[in-house]
């Protein structure tokens, strides 16, 4: 008879294995990076082989792909989308501009450092990242999930106040519902 701790561990492993093989990506092209998503998903690179496919609504999606820069206006929508997503949920920062502003580092309308506002699991560098890079980003995410390190949702919950303060700094007019996550 196994104790609870061990059985939990086995459950976790099975859960992570399952999660790793069904990564549903929310169909929300937030920036120019969205242009390499169709090639990734279609016949040449066929991401569905890896269990990566599109999901129409946040409630069904596992991964929020931040495809590049986020303008302040999109940021607001992205926060809402992220909060609507069900746990487990992951964020992939796609392209240089999610890391340190990219070419828009001096623009008045784009955020520069994504992880100040959302917990990011994996960054894929490039401008534009090639489909191969996108796929290896997903592979990295799968690895992270399998190792049980992809706990962005928990991190977000734990540090909600910090994230909120950062988000509110750039979104002055905060009219947001609280979602039941």
């Amino acid at each position, binding site marked *: 008879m196994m104790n609870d701790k061990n059985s939990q561990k086995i459950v976790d492993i099975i859960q992570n294995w399952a999660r790793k093989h069904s990564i549903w990506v929310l169909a929300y092209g937030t920036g120019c990076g969205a242009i390499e998503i169709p090639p990734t998903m279609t*016949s*040449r*690179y*066929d991401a569905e*082989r890896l269990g990566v496919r599109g999901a129409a609504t946040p409630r069904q999606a596992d991964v929020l792909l931040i495809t590049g820069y986020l303008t302040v206006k999109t940021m607001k929508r992205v926060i809402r989308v992220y909060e609507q997503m069900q746990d487990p949920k992951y964020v992939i*920062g796609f392209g*240089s*501009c*999610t*890391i*340190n*502003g*990219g*070419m828009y*580092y*001096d623009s008045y309308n784009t955020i520069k*450092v*994504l*992880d100040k506002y959302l917990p*990011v*699991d*994996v*960054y*894929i*560098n*490039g*401008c534009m*990242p*090639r*489909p*191969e*890079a996108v*796929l*290896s*980003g997903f*592979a*990295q995410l799968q690895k*992270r999930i399998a190792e049980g*390190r992809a706990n962005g949702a928990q991190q977000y919950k734990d540090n909600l106040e910090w994230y909120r303060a950062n988000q509110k700094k750039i979104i002055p007019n905060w009219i947001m519902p609280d979602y039941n996550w």
Partner: protein
Amino acid sequence: MSFFDLNGTLKPLTALKQFGKKPHTISYPKESKEAADRYRGLHFNDLDECIGCGNCSTICQNAAIDMIHIEGHDGKKGDSGLRPRVDNGRCCWCALCVEVCPTGSLSLTKDYLYVSEDPDSFLWTPGKDNPEGKEQISFFSTEETSLNVLDRVPMPELEGKERVKSFAEVVLGYNEAEARAEASRCISCGLCTEVCPEHMHIPEYINAIAAGNDADAVRIIYDNNPLPEMCGKVCTRRCEDVCAIASRGEALAIRWLKRYATETAVTADITREIVNPEIREANGKTVGIIGAGPSGLTAAYYLALRGYDVTIYESSAKAGGATMYGIPKYRLPIESLDKQIDYIKSIGVKINFNTKVGKDISFKEIYNKFDAVFMGVGFPDAWSLGVDGEDAKGSMQAFRYLYMINSGDKVDIGDKVIVVGGGNVAIDAARVSRRFGADVTILYRRRVEDMPADWEEIEGAEDEGVHIIPQGIPIKVHKDENGHVKSVEYLKAEMVPDPKGGRPKPVAIEGSNTIIEATAVMAAIGQMGDYSFLEKEFEDKIKIERGRFIVNEKQQTGDPKVFAGGDAVNRTADAISAIADGFRACKAIDEMLSA
């Protein structure tokens, strides 16, 4: 259209044609399509080839490239010691940095995978962090695609045939459009400033010229050089050797640009107006300067600006030292030099001409009269060849010859002149002799490419019809019955490589004696100092070693009150080094006297 359209229903079944065909899919990560040969992926920087000019950093519109110190690259002349570090959180993979890299050390590779969970890991140093990138270079710049302007704006010159008719200045100078075009090639790295003995603010004045602001350029130039027009014409311009653009193309014409800027100030008065220097109130201290050469004039000018009462003692009738008497007027016209000296005098510098220290006034008197003394005495004497028959009439030192010509004297050289030596003095003497109609031959021990003279000068001499006999060692001067030079006998030499790795040595070939006819022979194999003016009592303090004064880094001799500079101190023996000495001495004197 009917409800059921047979054709329209069946045609889409064409998709079934694909059934069983080999898919187009690249099953990444099992297989991966190789990036194209020109793919713009991650950077690679050849750290040894890179000179740290920072042009990549300034072209980057995303401010993605920082210049940082990395271990093992401490920098040297022509290398700032900094290397680019790329922030891939900014980089947009546009490769403009590659296009502007003057050395071509920076390139992009086929590697494009950069996936990480840590957002702080995207700061990296190409070359150091990816040494394997060297094998994957894909996007690089060539001379053809480089965005550096590699070709210099050609300097208009007189034709060789025209030149030999007179002492008119050979180089005509840039006009405004040419100067702007040439100045706009500069990438403002500043590598040149380090090799300039005087550390002139080169990128700043070039940028001022490029921006169309010549007055500012003149002001910047006069900040630490009071004889810039002279430098603009005859400087040895070591700055151009390390120019970043020169790694692939022709160096910026830094010298000609300085010349252009200073020539926009046409007279001494206009110069004064443009430079408008701040002259401090007289502080009552006095400085005596021996020799009105570049070092003496520089020290005098900047001391005068600092409020000192400065007096120069000059043995000749005109100021300028070697630049006045050693350099032929087709390179540096007398009006140009006069203009600069008038300007220096207008600041309040007093010059006593025709006053030879040791004869007309004793060094001791100067020493006692002034609060500080600066000696810029130069090398007034020349080495002789040391061969038989050198005492013949028509055998002379090239340096003396130039001195006499520049003083306005006539020298009889006949119609066949042989100049022995390969330095600038030799070329100058040869070209001057050409202007008096003589047939001139230069005899040099080594090969033409070993000549220490400026390549431009050598080319100019060849254009004017000067013959050069390389690898020839003179052994005897033959005299005619009147005791006049008749011919020169020399031995052919072969170059023997130095086993220690030094430059090859010429070794005479026995029996290869050749005789060429001559009416005059000029030795141009070096100059030396004359320190006879120093009284015995100073010998203990003011030390001389191998023909030069011993000074510290402040140009101070063993006697704290006495400073020295110029040819009589430094080995490079060019005008800009002399100016640097003068400037350093000025600062040291100022420091000492205002303490």
